């Protein structure tokens, strides 16, 4: 086993996904199989290899500090599931 049900529960919490018991079981099996496959990478010696986050050698892409027009507020809020007084509205925040 590469990962167990408890790992999946933890990952689901980090991912903010509500999973049923059945889903947890199913995902545990599937993710375990995928990770099992991914183990093939351990055959590769990467001790002297630099990681590559960007495939292109592009650097220093910047814009001038100039103000551009913002969106009208109606447009900013047009897709909001809930809004009030020009604010986005969300359920209470519990820490």
């Amino acid at each position, binding site marked *: 086993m590469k990962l167990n049900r408890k790992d999946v529960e*933890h990952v689901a919490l980090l991912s903010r996904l509500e999973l049923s018991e059945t889903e947890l079981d199913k995902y545990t099996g599937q*993710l375990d199989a995928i990770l099992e496959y991914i183990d093939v990478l351990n055959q590769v010696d990467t001790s002297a290899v630099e*990681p590559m986050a960007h495939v292109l050698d592009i650097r220093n892409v910047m814009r001038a500090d100039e103000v551009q027009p913002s969106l009208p507020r109606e447009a900013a809020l047009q897709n909001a599931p809930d809004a009030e007084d020009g604010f986005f509205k969300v359920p209470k925040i519990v820490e």
Partner: protein
Amino acid sequence: MDLFRLKAHELQQKLFRREVSAVEITQSVLARADKVDSTIQSFITRTPEAALAQAKRVDEKLARGEAVSPLAGIPGALKDNMCTKGVKTTCASKILANFVPPYDATITEKLAAADAVIVGKANLDEFAMGSSTENSGFFVTRNPWDTDRVPGGSSGGSGAAVAAGEAIWSLGSDTGGSIRLPAAYCGVVGLKPTYGRVSRYGLVAYASSLDQIGPFARDVRDCALVLGAISGHDRRDSTSINAPVPDYTAKLESGVKGLKIGLPREYFVAGMQPEVEAAIRRSIDELVAMGAELVEVSMPHTQYALATYYLIATAEASSNLGRYDGVGFGHRGEGSDIVSMYKRSRAEGFGPEVQRRIMLGTYALSSGYYDAYYLKALKVRTLIKQDFDRAFGQVDVLIAPIAPTTAFKIGEKVEDPLAMYLVDVCTIPSNLAGVPALSLPCGFADGLPIGMQIIGPHLSEATLLQVAYTFEQAHDYHKQLAAIREVD
């Protein structure tokens, strides 16, 4: 005449000679979609009124004698993960079912500037995650060559629309093969350009370091025309390449004499459908007969590409898809507090494949596993890129299969994610290396199209098109449109 059966460059000639109007072309394509889309289901959203209005504007421009671009008045489709201001952009996800962007993607702006006609937004695997379009949150798109089969994915709607005559050309996005696979399965030309060649601004991100927009077309010339219209530097995309865009049609007729073609032996994997392997090898022989030189090359890290991809792509996706939380846009589930609202919204809004990839990526980045998974994958990515660098030191292009088999049956791989992932084994390496790769029809097996892959070094699109054109002109695969069993 069925205008919808013609290529863009043919229609363009007729348009410029005033033999037909853009409105007539558009009407023909819209009528075809009216007829076949209930069967093929390429589109999530169709925009016939806007398309006709745009066609009318093109006709007016032509009447005034104004210069127009090669794509002017030619109907095309966009994958529904490209933002269109005022038109729903869903990513085939329930979580974005009602999302209407207040802005246009760069490619949307460029196509508008080229006076192209957009007939609709094409279906895809939800958030471009999949190889069959079965992961669409709405419905499955069918392969026009055999409606029991998948069109490939994730840009299945874009591929099927072009193959079925519902669009003359279309755009897809390719993160691990999502343009090339549907192009191969649907028997059309598909090109994943060099990473950075086409702006990603307005393309809803799946895996930012791999995603790239590219064209689907009926033939290589059309592919070159569309690529020319969408390529170029964009200041809104920091990873955009600042290099001039050549006329991609200029070198089409230059032939392959003296070109060095590499045959990477690792791409001919165990379990390949014999007809597919035979078609590829036969195609290579033909190119050699046309004057190309064949060189066997080895790309030893190819076998690690799939695992590498599924770590990098899912890690980036887990972060890119964090924003779908029911706060600013998209589906909101019931929840009395913020965390339960988040969890409910995302559980209801995302389909299983998206959930699976989010969790895999989250795991790969999580404390204690980062080095073993994500960082390891970045290092292997370096080795895969070096394989390509070495190969392109020896050859001009590589020829390989697109997929080990022809289009598979709908439902065949749904329950086995890993089997589905293995479909992409030949297309993924070029995304990891950021190099361009083209899918070209090169034969049929049991009435299903087979795709050949032509891969080149960074910014070698013109060469890929040149090789593809030379091969294409020696065959008539591009002259056939799929005959849809239920309709034609």
